[in-house]
């Protein structure tokens, strides 16, 4: 026993002399998380990160069987689901962890918004976070097409057609996104490359920046807590907070396994570009509020095509969300800013209501 310990410390010293482990250890010891009545929201980012790690692990496994071509993609996923041992499990976990990751990212975003954690000096953390959310949505959009089934095919057709609506650059952007004028096998290989290489690379860069900023600046304390002057308590990150994080991750693994077992990912019918769009076609739930809004718009608004108006409004909404740290002057000065709380509530209510209406709408019109 003693022998083992001395051997371990010998290895530790060997590494410490070469790469310097001591600063990392002192950083981990020093890191603290504030404790107050809103502390629960500090776990949301870590949960999103954990689900991202699950996505990478299961995604790498899926690569072993997946074939990115219009002739083979559907069949390779079918093979994976029926013949490969635990193929259904890996794909279903990838499917569910993707959905939960985006849900957690939204919860993380709104909790940060309501706690005004974007105020100085954390503007860059907010910017990198909004970019990470956009990347997560792009992951979802590109991944949705890969099984090459009917629903995914038409969702991609509609989704990419939206690019073409933008004035001037629209046609060009559409062609770049699709690899041609139509959604074909060329689109599939493009989406595949983006999904498994380009997005992960960009994602790691922004994730690195996001995490670095969180380490550097520490956790933000909401203004209400800060101003109330209540006793400032804190918790050690290692091991206290980290172990609580880990419990959440274990629960997430159990939930993923349950969802995968009882609600495995569907494959549906293979895409046929000449068949009519099926009734009840819908995008992933996190695009539903936009999809349903476009459905409700009239053909023309003030002489402009309705879809252009809608899509421009969503684009402006995204820019607004991104720029909140600069727009919310009161929060920046440490004053209460109820306006932005109400804006946040309005956005949340709008998304929830539109999503609900989208899923309950009669698909036959």
């Amino acid at each position: 026993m003693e022998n083992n310990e001395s051997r371990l410390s010998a290895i530790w010293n060997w590494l410490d002399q070469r790469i310097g482990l001591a600063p990392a250890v002192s950083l981990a010891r020093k890191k603290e998380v504030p404790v107050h009545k809103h502390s629960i929201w500090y776990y949301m980012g870590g949960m999103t990160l954990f689900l991202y790690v699950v996505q990478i692990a299961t995604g790498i496994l899926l690569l072993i069987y997946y074939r990115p071509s219009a002739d083979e993609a559907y069949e390779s996923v079918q093979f994976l689901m029926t013949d490969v041992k635990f193929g259904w499990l890996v794909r279903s976990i990838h499917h569910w962890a993707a959905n939960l990751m985006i849900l957690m990212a939204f919860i993380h975003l709104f909790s940060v918004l309501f706690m005004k954690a974007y105020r100085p000096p954390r503007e860059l953390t907010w910017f990198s976070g909004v970019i990470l959310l956009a990347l997560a949505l792009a992951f979802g959009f590109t991944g949705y097409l890969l099984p090459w089934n009917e629903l995914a095919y038409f969702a991609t057709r509609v989704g990419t057609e939206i690019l073409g609506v933008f004035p001037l650059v629209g046609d060009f952007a559409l062609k770049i996104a699709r690899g041609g004028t139509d959604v074909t096998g060329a689109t599939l290989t493009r989406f595949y490359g983006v999904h498994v290489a380009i997005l992960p690379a960009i994602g790691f860069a922004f994730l690195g920046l996001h995490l670095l900023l969180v380490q550097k600046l520490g956790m933000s304390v909401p203004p209400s807590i800060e101003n109330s002057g209540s006793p400032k308590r804190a918790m050690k990150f290692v091991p206290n907070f980290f172990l609580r994080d880990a419990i959440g991750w274990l629960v997430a693994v159990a939930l993923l396994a349950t969802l995968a077992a009882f609600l495995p990912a569907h494959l549906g019918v293979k895409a046929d570009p000449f068949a009519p769009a099926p009734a009840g076609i819908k995008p992933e739930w996190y695009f539903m509020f936009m999809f349903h809004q476009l459905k409700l718009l009239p053909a023309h608004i003030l002489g402009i095509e309705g879809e252009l108006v809608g899509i421009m409004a969503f684009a402006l909404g995204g820019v607004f969300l991104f720029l909140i740290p600069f727009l919310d002057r009161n929060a920046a000065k440490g004053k209460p800013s109820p306006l932005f709380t109400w804006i946040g509530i309005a956005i949340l209510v709008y998304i929830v209501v539109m999503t609900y209406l989208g899923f309950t709408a009669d698909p036959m019109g």
Partner: protein
Amino acid sequence: MSESDRPTAESRRGFVNWLLGTSAGAFAVSAFYPVVRFIVPPAEAESATSSVTLPFTPAEIGANEGKQFRFGNRPGLLVRTPTGELRAFSAECTHLSCTVQYRTDESRIWCACHNGFFDLNGRNVQGPPPRPLDTYDVNVRGDQIVVSLKA
């Protein structure tokens, strides 16, 4: 050579920096240009299809019925109206280019993606589609249905 004509160390440094900067810029452009061109897909040959013979006979499509067909590399829709007339349309919705279908219960053309409706002349009559469907000419020659671009 007078003192003032001699290049100073500062201007030499400025020149070298300029040279380095433009070289780096030129290098970046020469490296990224092929990447950008690589991403832009090669031009496709314009679809030369001007007319197709459908793979079914006039007898196979009843009144108040619609059938999908391929017009070159684009989807088409043939409709026999309740009064027995044959009409052909591009099946691409003018809204966001989903493929439309004929709704027997409505006797209208329907896009499932955003609930757009078109009447039997292809006019956008309900929902988000901003324009009518493109229409084709239909000619019946014996047992064959020939669909062609509008003259």
